[in-house]
């Protein structure tokens, strides 16, 4: 009997490793090895034809910390995250409360909210170009009806990042709405009935019952939104290319530029490591504080 159990255990072990090996190989090639290689190459100098690469320790990091563009990009990204996350969560919540209520044209409303989510960001940026173009764009055309002067939304440092932020919110809110919609549908009907019997106003019901029950969803969405605030940059390629004078440059765009336009791989590596560290902290919050069931129901 024990020999049989032993055989079965060994069989399962072999199968287990065999079944996992294709995924393990690809994860190693495209996630684990690159992470370590990035960390490693961030500790070496940039090689030129005359001077080969050499170990410089944390010099690349020090250089980055002394680079004003880096700090501008960090500041931009913090502002970008700080505005897009709360605003798109707030809009998503309003959308979900509406789309879940008994309103007219509900199908149309839900579709309209969600449509930007299925568009490529590149295509979305092309659509928004039509709004932002100075003189010819829709915003200026509407403004001129009221006698407002033409504004170069994408071409001046004061407004470029805000123009990017608006496109992001437009793209994200409908996606987050879906999670709220799902959460709203799990709230039992009798809570609403009980609140009505007690004579609670709609605002009280929303604030005291609905919002607390949506807290896990909100946290989940917030974590996702934080991750997206690092990776959503496609519209920069169409709308501003990070300009003017770096006013709308975000960290991932800067990494791309460092590596593929300036060919400064060590600086790109150092920045990548910092991004991974920040995302790691976000992930840790996700794992330790969030109810895991809300992710994969």
């Amino acid at each position: 009997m024990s020999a049989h159990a032993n055989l079965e255990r060994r069989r399962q072990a072999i199968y287990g490793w065999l079944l996992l090996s294709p995924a393990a190989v690809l994860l190693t090639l495209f996630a684990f090895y690159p992470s370590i290689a990035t960390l490693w190459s961030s500790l070496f100098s940039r090689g030129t034809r005359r001077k080969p690469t050499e170990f410089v320790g944390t010099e690349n990091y020090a250089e980055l910390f002394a680079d004003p563009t880096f700090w501008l990009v960090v500041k931009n990204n913090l502002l970008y995250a700080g505005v897009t996350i709360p605003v798109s969560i707030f809009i998503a919540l309003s959308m979900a409360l509406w789309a879940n209520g008994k309103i007219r044209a509900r199908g149309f409303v839900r579709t309209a909210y969600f449509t930007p989510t299925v568009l490529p960001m590149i295509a979305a940026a092309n659509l928004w170009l039509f709004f932002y173009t100075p003189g010819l764009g829709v915003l200026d055309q509407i403004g001129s009806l009221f006698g407002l002067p033409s504004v170069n939304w994408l071409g001046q440092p004061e407004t470029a990042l805000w123009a990017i932020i608006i496109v992001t919110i437009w793209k994200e809110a409908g996606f987050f709405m879906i999670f709220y919609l799902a959460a709203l549908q799990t709230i039992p009907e009798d809570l609403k009935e009980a609140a009505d019997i007690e004579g609670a106003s709609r605002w009280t019901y929303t604030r005291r019952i609905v919002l607390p029950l949506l807290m896990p969803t909100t946290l989940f969405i917030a974590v996702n939104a934080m991750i997206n605030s690092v990776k959503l940059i496609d519209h920069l390629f169409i709308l501003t290319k990070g300009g003017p004078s770096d006013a709308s440059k975000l960290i991932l765009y800067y990494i791309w530029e460092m590596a593929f336009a300036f060919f400064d791989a060590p600086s790109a590596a150092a920045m990548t490591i910092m991004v991974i560290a920040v995302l790691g902290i976000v992930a840790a919050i996700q794992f330790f504080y969030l109810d895991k069931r809300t992710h994969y129901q």
Partner: protein
Amino acid sequence: MKSLTNFMDSFGAILLAIIWIAPLLFAFWAATHSTSDAVNLKLFSPWTLENFRVAWAGAPWLKYFINTFLLVTVILIGQFVLTTLAGFAFAQLQFPGKDFLFILVLMQLFILPEVLIVENYAMISRLGLFDTILGVGMPYMASAFGIFLMRQAFKGVPIELHEAARIEGCGLLGILWRVYVPLAKPTYLAYALVSVSTHWNNFLWPLIVTNSPDTRPLTVGLSIFGAPENGVDISIISAATLMSVAPLLIAFLIFQRQFVQAFLRAGIK
């Protein structure tokens, strides 16, 4: 009073909905009117399909469509195979090292492929896959999220079915293929919809790895076509944009319910 708040709700919701699809409607309107009418916002000027003809002639769109189609297919097949095998191993097999491997997979959830572009590019070049569709798709195949999703789906399969199939003399892979895979069909569908729309829309990584019209997907083609230095005007850009989003947009409008449920089920991409 009640009907008033109800009216206000409908009004607000519909107003927001109109704002939300306005960019798309404007693009549609601009694409179907001549450039000078579009930039002057002449709302009732005559319709034309000329912009679509010019945009279509301006770039190898058919090639881009085929590339995108091949890309999402290659990624989806790779993901299905890899995540099924790995998800099954994590859900139903006991073996030493399993927990450690699972933590490694968990870690990949926050190491975004987007952030590792530099080293992944080096890896793709080393493998000789630069400027190939396989090279664009490969980093996404062993999706940690997909492994997670399949593990969850397989954990929900009753063990009695597993035992029954074994008594019938089915091998482990036979059980996986005949019992687990059919029962996880809704999960596969949800995963497929999320994966296809994610990779149909992906831009940065294909931009880095592709270099020629033979491999370039739609998003990269569109970004090159729309570059201001190419001197293309807004009506033609709108036409090109609408052409390239049309397949996914039409699919979305037809399978709306499934799409929304897929995103619900799938949580994060």
